[in-house]
């Protein structure tokens, strides 16, 4: 029960936050940080407790149940989300300084926090998907928060289209999975593993689900939205795009590993995309000079590493991934916050302009250095544990050799990236630096990253405890058998340690040679090869889709009344005729000749024919009215007086209204070409024939429904009336009638409003 509370409390707080902000503008965000703090503190004692799960029916016909679970795996994420969330809210409080735009951001962040908790606690795939899409929407709103800037809008749209498109694929995969097994509950899916992997649709499901996970977690080639999302303010980037939302794809892959994993398709896909992303992401980070872009690309690389580790399908790999999730969240969020703080304090994030900041901001420099050391994998930081575990995973087996090499390259480059992000702005040119103008100062903006960075250090010191309490249970909850290897800080002097040392040296070398990276990129750009990047592909795809849509619209929405009618009549004819291919048509029975009926029919036919030849539009309408009057006569002749009267009256009223409308039309018709008239004639005849066919099919089975017998029998007894029609309208089906007259009033409101507006503008042309 309390699981439901901690998730939906977030939504409730988001509703309330705007009012809170109005009352206490400078402190509302800090107040809201009590929510994630509360969640963190409540869940901390749950480490090592038995998993909680609950399940309530919600929309059982769709398989959607409110099923939540708190396994050790979910608990790991909940602690990360809430712990970092607390610091982010405090950071946001100082970053936005109580502005109204900041308040909007905090409100959406609350929704996001709740949705993220929803994702990690869901035990029903459809419920998970709902929260998944919620986070995409929140990301869209947050990235586009500076909505006056075209760049921000484009970036937000890009993020939404990529993650949303992936989300659609994910939904398809989830539904297929549910059809295979008959349920969307995760424990049931995990138990049906062998059924799933031998099912013919298995490959399709894997492709769809991985599409969803890869777009969310920015794997190549879907990575490009993440650097674009850096348009968002830094608290958002630090939270969503480094520590939580982008990890959702990794979370999903890990969660579904017992359901979909173990096959070659799964493993190959994860390993190849993950490895590629890991290496390329790190390399791309060297090219840029905006601090946030550098960090964004290195996040891409880290996410690739995570996918790779899960895909390798070894028990050590899983544990390495879990450890690395914690490692990465701690140092990356800290570094992003440092970047934001630098932006506030100096007004720029460009590392070519930043230097020697440690003189002005020593505490900030400490925070950055601590986080950077964790990122570089230096002992005793937790980052070191993460790196060691990664290397250890690839040590087993020959087929992992190339993965080992890839990891080595990526890690070395990442160390160089640390240099870019930390050494350059803070320590470069210490002796000769010209101090930049100090634009602001705040304790919280420095304290928050410092807390996270120290967390990275402490986690490293207490590795064994974290390993035993958090990581091991989480891995077992994911279906892994318990591992022989214990997670600890120091394994002794072995090959892996040597590898780490070599990586450090390689990283420093790359750092010294860093200027070649932007130069190489410029060379590619000059040769026009940057046309093939994912970003450009996305832009081309978007442009051509819009272009195509424009052309289709201009063909279909041409504004010609005549052509709309053609399409309408043709479609209706087809819909009438096509089903009849299987139904019997009755031959019309010859009824005895009756003069009144024949006269009515004659009036209708003569009226129709006359309307073709009339020269005055009003006369045409009158001639068509004859058809209506003929029908009224037929009704009367066949014993339906109410219908006849109504038909008569409606026809008269229609004539009056049409006459009014005709007064406003120009007196001359445009001449039409002969072919247009032929089309008109052909389609009209076709439509008429279709209606005849439809009627013949209907009358082939003249069953009298029991409802009409019921009405007839009870009309006087219960309805107190002899006029069955009226009794039905006013008594038996009064609610229907109530609905109809409500619609009438609404329609009249609309029509009167439209026409009155034209009158008010002094324009009485149609």
């Amino acid at each position, binding site marked *: 029960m309390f699981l439901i509370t901690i998730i939906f409390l977030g939504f409730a707080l988001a509703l309330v936050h705007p009012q809170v902000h109005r009352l206490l503008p400078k402190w509302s965000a800090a107040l809201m940080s009590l929510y994630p703090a509360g969640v963190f503190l409540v869940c901390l004692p749950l480490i090592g407790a038995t998993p909680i799960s609950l399940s309530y029916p919600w929309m059982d016909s769709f398989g959607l149940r409110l099923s939540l679970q708190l396994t050790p795996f979910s608990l790991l994420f909940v602690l990360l989300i809430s712990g970092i969330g607390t610091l982010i809210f405090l950071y946001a409080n100082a970053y936005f300084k109580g502005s109204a735009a900041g308040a909007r951001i905090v409100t959406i962040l609350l929704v996001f926090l709740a949705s993220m908790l929803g994702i990690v606690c869901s035990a029903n795939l459809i419920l998970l998907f709902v929260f998944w899409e919620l986070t995409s929407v929140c990301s869209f709103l947050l990235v586009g928060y500076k909505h006056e800037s075209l760049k921000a809008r484009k970036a937000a749209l890009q993020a939404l289209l990529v993650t949303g498109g992936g989300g659609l694929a994910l939904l398809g995969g989830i539904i297929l999975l549910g059809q295979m097994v008959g349920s969307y509950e995760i424990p049931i899916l995990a138990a049906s593993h062998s059924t799933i992997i031998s099912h013919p649709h298995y490959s399709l499901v894997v492709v769809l689900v991985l599409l969803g996970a890869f777009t969310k977690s920015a794997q190549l080639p879907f990575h490009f939205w993440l650097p674009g999302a850096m348009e968002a303010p830094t608290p958002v980037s630090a939270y969503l795009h480094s520590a939580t939302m982008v990890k959702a794809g990794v979370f999903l892959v890990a969660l579904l590993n017992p359901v979909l994993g173990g096959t070659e398709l799964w493993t190959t896909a994860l390993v190849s995309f993950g490895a590629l992303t890991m290496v390329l992401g790190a390399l791309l980070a060297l090219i840029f000079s905006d601090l946030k872009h550098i960090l964004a690309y290195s996040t891409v690389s880290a996410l690739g590493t995570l996918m790779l580790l899960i895909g390798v399908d070894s028990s050590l790999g899983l544990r390495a991934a879990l450890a690395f999730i914690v490692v990465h969240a701690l140092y990356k969020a800290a570094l992003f916050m440092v970047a934001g703080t630098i932006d506030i304090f100096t007004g720029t994030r460009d590392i070519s302009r930043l230097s020697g900041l440690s003189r002005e901001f020593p505490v900030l420099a400490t925070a950055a250095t601590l986080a950077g050391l964790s990122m570089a994998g230096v002992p005793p930081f937790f980052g070191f544990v993460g790196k060691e575990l990664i290397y250890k995973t690839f040590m087993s087996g020959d087929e992992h050799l190339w993965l080992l090499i890839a990891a080595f390259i990526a890690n070395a480059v990442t160390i160089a990236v640390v240099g870019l992000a930390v050494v350059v702005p803070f320590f470069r040119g210490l002796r000769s630096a010209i101090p930049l103008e100090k634009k602001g100062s705040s304790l919280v903006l420095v304290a928050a990253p410092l807390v996270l960075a120290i967390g990275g250090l402490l986690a490293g010191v207490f590795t064994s405890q974290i390993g035993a309490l958090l990581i091991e249970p989480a891995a077992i909850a994911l279906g892994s058998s318990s591992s022989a290897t214990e997670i600890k800080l120091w394994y002794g002097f072995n090959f892996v340690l040597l590898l780490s040392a070599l990586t450090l040296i390689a990283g420093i070398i790359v750092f010294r040679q860093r200027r070649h990276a932007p130069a190489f990129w410029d060379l590619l750009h000059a040769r026009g090869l940057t046309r093939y990047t994912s970003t450009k592909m996305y832009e081309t795809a978007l442009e051509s889709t819009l272009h195509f849509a424009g052309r289709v619209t201009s063909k279909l929405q041409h504004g010609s009344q005549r052509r709309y009618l053609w399409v309408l009549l043709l479609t209706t004819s087809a819909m009438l005729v096509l089903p009849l291919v299987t139904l019997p048509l009755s031959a019309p029975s010859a009824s005895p000749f009756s003069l009144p009926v024949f006269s009515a029919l004659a009036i209708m036919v003569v009226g129709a024919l006359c309307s073709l030849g009339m020269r005055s539009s009003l006369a045409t309408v009158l001639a068509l009215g004859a058809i209506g009057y003929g029908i009224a006569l037929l009704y009367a002749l066949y014993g339906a007086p*109410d219908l006849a009267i*109504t038909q008569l*009256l409606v026809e008269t009223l229609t004539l009056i209204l049409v006459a009014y409308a005709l*007064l406003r039309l120009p007196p001359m018709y445009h001449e039409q070409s002969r072919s247009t008239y032929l089309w008109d004639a052909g389609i009209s005849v076709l439509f008429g024939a279709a209606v005849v066919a439809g009627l013949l099919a209907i009358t082939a089975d003249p069953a009298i429904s029991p409802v009409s017998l019921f009405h007839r029998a009870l009309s006087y007894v219960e309805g*107190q009336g002899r*006029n069955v*029609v009226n009794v039905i309208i006013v*008594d038996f089906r009064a609610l229907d009638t109530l609905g109809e007259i409500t619609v*009438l*009033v609404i329609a009249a409101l609309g029509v009167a409003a439209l026409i009155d507006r034209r009158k008010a503008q002094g324009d009485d042309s149609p």
Partner: protein
Amino acid sequence: MKSILLIAFARIHIALQVFFSIYLLLRGHNLPGGGFIGGLLATGALALYLIAHGQPWKPRWAPGGFNPMSVAALGLLLAIASGVPPLLDGAPYMTPMWGGEIFIPVVGMTKIGSPLFFDIGVYLVVLGVCTALVYSLHPPSEDLSQDSGVVPVARQVAGREVSK
């Protein structure tokens, strides 16, 4: 262009038509008639007034003209309200409740009940809605004076000559 003939005729005919519409309304439960038909007839009467006089009917008790949408709203309210009394008795909404019979001249003995009020509500709605439509389409009175009403049209139909 005001037609004296039409005005004179309308004076008698409109009153007849309105009374006839009420007659049809009240007798609808046992004989052809009812709320929809009555409402349409009454609209016809008001439309006739509009065509004859060039402006909507402005009774002495509503010198600025009455708003047809108000009538429609009143009718809707009446229709909804007619289903409420059964709720007070514990029965579902819109259960018909019948009282005694009263004598209405010309119509005869009519049973009073909630369906009757519902029907009156329907009558008012149809009257209001259709009158609103007719009024909104009616051009401002200045335009009518220049027009004879029949719009000449030139058309070429598949080879026939253009004729004015």
